[in-house]
């Protein structure tokens, strides 16, 4: 057995066991709590990273931990797709945890926030390293339920209402997944990811299983029409948690769908039964809906939330194209969007933290007061629109190539339309932030130094700015050089899935 086999256990159990430790020690010292949280996130990231050479060689590991029910157990799997998402999640998590240190200073409930944050990290990694759908389901539910505490952190009536909607939809999605998994078990005798395609004949039960998988994972990914929880849950959470919710936890739904499309069913089944049409229609609606409604939102975080819905539509679309380029674009977009959206949410958080302003109309001139924050925001926003040479452009380009490969140029048109819409709702923010608001500054009663130069007194603290800037620069570098690590991983993962994923 390779020594790497122990890594999934470590990266899942270490955060989970650190959670009570952090909680207990938080009563003693705040610094200890903060330090331990960051340490846990960092160690987890590097542990996941240690798998890199192993997966780059194309090797996979799968093994059973123990049996729960007959023919059903907890299994572990490491393959390139797991690695892609795990490394992405742990990296963004690390950044968000460092960011939280200063962001959460004025907040209450920190003793609850940090343990839950770290626990959710462990649970999320458990999803990616699961070797069968049952294990995946267990960690999926665990992650969803525990992140509820993050969503309702503020405990205001709005937060509680949003959290309740999130909870109910999570349970609905979870129950749909339960049906799907049990139907798969009934049809195939197993739900393991190591047995190749499980259901090769489309039947009524198989169709219902497919729909339920779509409901379960799609609800998590913010697919229309199950996206209704997203625009309320993401804005109401503390910003680092929003970054993680939008940046990473949505991707678990996408990951689940990828596994379903390649390990439960396969391309022939889905295309022959024309189920891909259903997914494609929903994906297109999601893309257009997300982008269009974002235009009508004036709360910054709500606009970002609707933007996430639109972007996850891209991911769904890329999956269902079933071409190699499409898949590369899909997985690369998972990387890109995670970087872009977390940067955007962290930047939005910094703005709210420093100035208390959430409404887009009030953000004029903020770029001059918070240059680094808005700089990162700008890079990420331009990437979302799809401006070269940023990573958003690269993913849209690859997705378009995939659409053309599938002989469906209509999707290219859809991508262009939504890019236009993205531009329509991001550019005004950026322009106003840097070039607007001189009149407002004179009108405000606060002490504002109307200097021509850049003023760093209004900027957020270093611990908040640095993660933001790192992620923003990530958007830049992961798009600038065509052979960058994210693109390499996506390429390998797509090829791997296409070859059968064993």
């Amino acid at each position, binding site marked *: 057995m390779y020594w790497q086999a122990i890594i999934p256990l470590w990266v899942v159990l270490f955060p989970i066991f650190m959670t009570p430790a952090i909680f207990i020690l938080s009563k003693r010292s705040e610094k200890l709590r903060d330090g331990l949280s960051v340490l846990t996130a960092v160690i987890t990231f590097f542990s996941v990273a240690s798998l890199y050479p192993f997966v780059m060689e194309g090797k996979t590991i799968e093994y059973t931990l123990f049996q729960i*029910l007959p023919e059903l157990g907890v299994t572990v799997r490491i393959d390139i797709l797991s690695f892609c998402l795990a490394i992405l999640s742990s990296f963004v998590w690390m950044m968000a945890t460092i960011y939280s240190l200063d962001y959460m200073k004025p907040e209450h409930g920190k003793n609850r926030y940090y343990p839950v944050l770290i626990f959710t990290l462990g649970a999320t990694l458990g999803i990616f390293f699961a070797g069968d759908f049952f294990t995946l389901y267990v960690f999926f539910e*665990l992650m969803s339920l525990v992140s509820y505490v993050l969503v309702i952190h503020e405990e205001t009536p709005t937060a509680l209402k949003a959290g*309740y909607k999130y909870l*109910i939809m999570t*349970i609905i999605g979870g129950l749909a997944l339960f049906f799907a998994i049990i139907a798969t078990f*009934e049809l195939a005798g197993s739900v393991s990811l190591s047995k190749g395609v499980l259901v090769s004949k489309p039947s009524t039960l198989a169709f219902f299983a497919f729909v339920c998988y779509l409901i379960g994972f799609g609800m998590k990914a913010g697919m229309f029409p199950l996206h209704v929880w997203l625009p309320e849950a993401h804005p109401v959470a503390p910003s680092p948690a929003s970054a993680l919710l939008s940046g990473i936890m949505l991707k678990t739904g996408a990951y689940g769908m990828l596994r379903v499309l390649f390990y439960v069913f396969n391309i022939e089944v889905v295309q022959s039964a024309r189920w891909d049409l259903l997914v494609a229609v929903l994906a297109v609606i999601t893309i257009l809906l997300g982008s269009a409604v974002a235009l009508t939102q004036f709360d910054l975080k709500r606009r970002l939330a609707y933007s996430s819905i639109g972007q996850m539509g891209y991911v769904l679309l890329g999956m269902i194209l079933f071409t190699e380029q499409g898949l590369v674009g899909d997985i690369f977009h998972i990387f890109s969007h995670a970087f872009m959206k977390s940067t955007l949410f962290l930047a939005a958080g910094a703005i709210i933290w420093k100035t208390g302003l959430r409404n887009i109309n009030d953000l004029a001139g903020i770029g001059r007061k918070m240059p680094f924050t808005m700089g990162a925001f700008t890079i990420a926003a331009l990437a979302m629109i799809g401006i070269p040479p940023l990573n958003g452009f690269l993913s849209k380009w690859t997705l378009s190539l995939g659409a053309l490969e599938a002989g469906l140029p209509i999707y290219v048109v859809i991508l262009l339309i939504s890019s236009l819409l993205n531009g329509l709702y991001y550019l005004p923010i950026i322009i106003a932030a840097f070039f607007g608001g001189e009149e407002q500054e004179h009108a405000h009663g606060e002490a504002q130094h109307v200097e021509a130069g850049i003023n760093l007194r209004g900027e957020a603290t270093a611990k908040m700015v640095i993660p933001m800037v790192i992620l923003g620069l990530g958007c830049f570098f992961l798009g600038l050089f065509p052979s960058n690590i994210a693109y390499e991983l996506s390429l390998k993962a797509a090829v791997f899935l296409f070859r059968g994923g064993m």
Partner: protein
Amino acid sequence: MNLNYEHLPVIIVALLLLAAFLEPIVYRHKKSWAAPLVIASMAFFALSSLYLMAAVNYHGPFNYYLGGWAPPFGIELEIDYLAVFLLLTFSVIGLIAIVYGLQDLKHGLKDEVLGWYFTLYLLLMASMAGISVTNDLFNMYVFVEISAISACAIISIKESRECIEASLKYLILSTLGSGCILLATAMLYMITGHLNIGYLNDVLPRVMSHYPNNILISLGFFVVGYGVKAALFPLHVWLPDAHTAAPSPSSAVLSGLVIKVYAAAFLKVFLKAYPREIFLEIPVMEIVLFLSVLAILYGSIVAMVQEDIKKMLAYSSIAQIGYVFLGFSLMGQRAVAGGLLHIFNHAMMKSMLFLAAGIIIYSTGIRRIRDMKGLGVKLPLTMGAFTIGALSMVGIPGTNGFISKWQLALGALDLGRPIIVVVILLSSLLNCLYYMPIVINAFFGVKGEPELEIGKVPGVMLYSILFLGFGIIFFGIYPAPLLAFLQKTVTAIL
């Protein structure tokens, strides 16, 4: 380990009965011995059940003739896998409930009746043990009657107006049920001349065709009789009042154990006495299946609108017993195993929830769900355990509730009835809708709420629910041996 354990079942029942009769005397003359006597008897019950389970698991089931008299004239006890499973469930949960009750009852009951409570409790336990092991229909009826009366009495013992009203309702309906059971037994005796389940199973196929009406009536009366007692929809009407008004340990035992013993008796009679062919001709099981689906939906929906926490838990029990009957009426291997598993799991879950509600009422006096804001801060362990119970009722993986639902769903799919799975999942969603708000209100959103008066929670009460909570998670992660045992049980029955 070659002790002659074959007498053990009789000893259990006899000892419980003896202790039941001794209790009032002890309570009158040496009050301090009353509680230890109950605990000792229940502990003996639990330990011997455990031993019996190990013995039957290792050596196989055995039959015992009471007094050495062989059937068809003597009473036979069949100690098979089902019997030891039921014995273990009843004894362990019963022990935990009465340990809890030591403190709670002093608070709720008048001083002079406490001894009587112990008597009734022991009688109830004795009769449940008797129903589990007996293989004779009339013997079963006798124990059913004993349990009916003791169950009614442990409700009314609180002597408040609502208790007496609830227990009277229960008594009347329960007596009707017993009457039905007696008539059904008489019907079967009339046509076969046998009361022994084994003998009935042999003879019935031969006489079936001659007396179709008798069989039909007996089936109907059994369904109604056991249905009323097990609170199967639509014969459940006595349950909400009864379980709400009773003292908490009684509620726990009533919801968790008593209604289950009748479901188990139903299983014994229908799947062991009657031959399987009958169900092909007479769709009794289809009817029961339909009623159980209605029970599941009705119980979950009505629970959502309840204000009193114990009433909500009572309606939830109506839904959960629906699951048990669902599993039994499907008659597939996995389905029946799922039903039996749910007897065990729900006993754990519902007892814990009722006992936790009892702690809340004991320390704060609050019964209305609306008033329970912020309790999690004051009673963290209690509400933590309640949360585990709630998650288990919803069916979150990692809890034993999930395992029962999985098993039942698989059982339903095995028989090609995916709609049942949808019903199970729908009820899980409904469960979430009424359990989660309690949990959320307890822990979150507490700023600016008035301070609650919290009395100290006695250790025994807390430890009992924590033990059950631990059990819920343990059997959620490690149900394998239990499932293997149930597999053997079901194979023997079907």
